[in-house]
């Protein structure tokens, strides 16, 4: 292991429910086990399962004298490889820094928007196998152990056992440790592409005297963005899902259970009581597939439409 000569900063980007916060905390705990000082913290927007979230970790030899978010990370961790499509995740990453990405792609195939040393791992497949759920944080931690030489895989596994064992019991500790070890083995390192432009969010940032008075907003067009009532249609949350419901109209018995169970109202009842799925807004929660009594709905990996 290398001895740190300056502070090491890691920024995690994931989606609510993938465990980015736990990953950051576990990395900090592992760093402390390796004799470092460390801190980890989340930044939540309006919290929802599937919404983009950030988490941060700092590691240093001595006491950390900074409490703010991380704008120029040494390491960027993506728990979801679609995030660069919608968020400027690569912004500020040091050119000599590293990226760790959950994707089925090889490092050389993946376009992050900045070409850096990159470790990729199919953490979703590992998590689905080991944990039976797409919670990829422990797999990504295993890959992170491969991607840098500051925090060891043994300390990461020890930290996973401490953290997950304490919270979820010894069985969860074991499964998550296995996921980390497998990701450590299967991770591939190379250099990613930096061809695509980093997406810029069309954000409305008025001066204080330009904001409508009274925490109150009518439907307003600002630049390319609509704000206020009736603006939610712009949030096409369908990109958040990791698996998609496939509907077999021949098996469907028109019982309507999926229709009234969908928490997002994305299942549309048709004239003859068969269903249509609005994949722009389906978050892939899988409730419809669970509740269907005749297995007419099947969850398929990936953001798919039919």
């Amino acid at each position: 292991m290398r001895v740190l000569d300056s502070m090491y900063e890691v920024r995690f980007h994931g989606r609510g429910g993938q465990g980015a916060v736990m990953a950051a905390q576990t990395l900090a705990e592992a760093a402390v086990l390796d004799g470092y000082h460390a801190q980890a913290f989340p930044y939540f927007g309006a919290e929802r399962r599937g919404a983009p979230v950030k988490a941060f970790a700092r590691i240093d030899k001595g006491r950390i004298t900074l409490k703010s978010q991380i704008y120029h990370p040494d390491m960027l961790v993506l728990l979801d490889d679609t995030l660069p499509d919608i968020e400027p995740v690569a912004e500020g990453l040091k050119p000599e820094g590293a990226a760790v990405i959950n994707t089925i792609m090889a490092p050389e195939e993946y376009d992050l928007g900045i070409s850096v040393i990159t470790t990729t791992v199919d953490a979703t497949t590992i998590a689905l196998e080991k944990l039976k759920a797409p919670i990829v944080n422990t797999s990504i931690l295993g890959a992170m152990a491969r991607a840098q030489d500051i925090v060891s895989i043994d300390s990461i596994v020890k930290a996973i056992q401490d953290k997950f064992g304490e919270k979820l019991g010894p069985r969860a500790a074991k499964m998550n440790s296995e996921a980390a070890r497998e990701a450590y083995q299967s991770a591939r390192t190379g250099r990613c592409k930096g061809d695509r432009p980093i997406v810029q969010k069309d954000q409305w940032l008025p001066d204080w005297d330009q904001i409508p008075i009274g925490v109150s907003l009518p439907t307003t067009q600002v630049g390319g963005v609509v704000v206020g009532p009736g603006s939610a249609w712009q949030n096409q949350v369908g990109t958040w899902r990791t698996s998609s419901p496939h509907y077999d109209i021949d098996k469907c018995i028109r019982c309507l259970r999926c229709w009234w169970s969908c928490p997002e109202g994305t299942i549309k009842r048709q004239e003859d009581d068969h269903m249509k799925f609005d994949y722009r807004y389906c978050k892939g929660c899988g409730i419809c597939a669970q509740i269907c009594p005749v297995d007419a709905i099947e969850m398929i990996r990936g953001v798919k439409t039919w």
Partner: protein
Amino acid sequence: MVTKVISADHAVAWGVRLGRVEVIPGFPITPQTLIMEQLSEFINDGEFDADFIPGESEHSVMSIAVGASAGGVRTFTATSSQGLALMHEMLYAPPQIRLPIVMVNVNRSLGAASGIWLEHNDSMPERESGWLQVYVEDNQEALDMVIQGFRIAEDERVMMPIMICLDGFVLSHTVEKVEVPEQAEVDRFLPKFKPMNMLDPADPRLINPLVPPEYAMEMRYQLDRAMDDSRIVIKEVDEAYARAFGRGYGGLFDTYQMEDAEFALLSLGTATTTARGVVDELRSKGKKAGLIKMRFMRPFPEKELLEATKDLKALGVFDRSVGFNSFGPVFTEVRGALRPLRLQITDHIAGLGGRDLTLEEMRDIFARIEESLSGRAERDVYWYGLRGRQR
């Protein structure tokens, strides 16, 4: 105009009636209850057309007030002490949403060591809630400030709620001569409420959504500037009121015998009345005593106070509540504002928990301030009527 001999609570009810308030959510608490009782009677007798909505708690009362005001109607409520404390969470909504609710808080001590009697420790902690906050001295001022209050609060440069504080029992249950204006006069002075942001299904708008860090700080600054701008409106409205009704109160604060004063007391609430009498006594003995009748704690009249005290040598500040191991809140703010002046400032705490503030105590207060003219006050804080030696 009709002359009546009524309590401050009833005077407030008259102000509300003359102000053509449309919705009054309420919950009883002594010593505020007389306001709600009188308003209920007005409505029951068909003399006053308003919706009285009994809430199941003060928290609900303020929530109802927010809804009513956002619905575009003139809204009033009143409370005291524990009731104000229970509203605390909801108090922070109307300033930032810019809803011009008028509320009377009848000052009463907030427990433990609780009672139903007068102390300012209920309203003083709410100075940072974003409400304009004014303290009145007598029953006439209580009535007049309800009417002035709506015109100040609903001015488009302000659009913020106002809390009118009056001393429990010493005013709320004391009858005095009150001139009740004619409805037509009040109608001329107080235009119909024109809401700034209104809940209207035909013109939907978001009101009070979750505000992320990208915007909340700018919204705080907006409110900070609006509070500052309200100083101008308060002065204008007081002058307009004086022209219309022949009674003005000096706006942010009033002064008495300050032109050539060497030492003075800054007081608020009913203590001002007794202090005025003591100033007269001292003046008759040739002593250059003066008085500042503090009215608005928010907006805090920092610049105006600096100007009013620039020739003084010693100033005492009266506090009817205490910051533990600190100073009274009025003292803390006044001393902060007057830092640029070479002025001996002392804090004078009396009348806590309903303890009567006597004429002798008020004379003592002025005596201590006069002593501090030497430039050396014995201490920063003096308690009056305290049994046992102050250490």
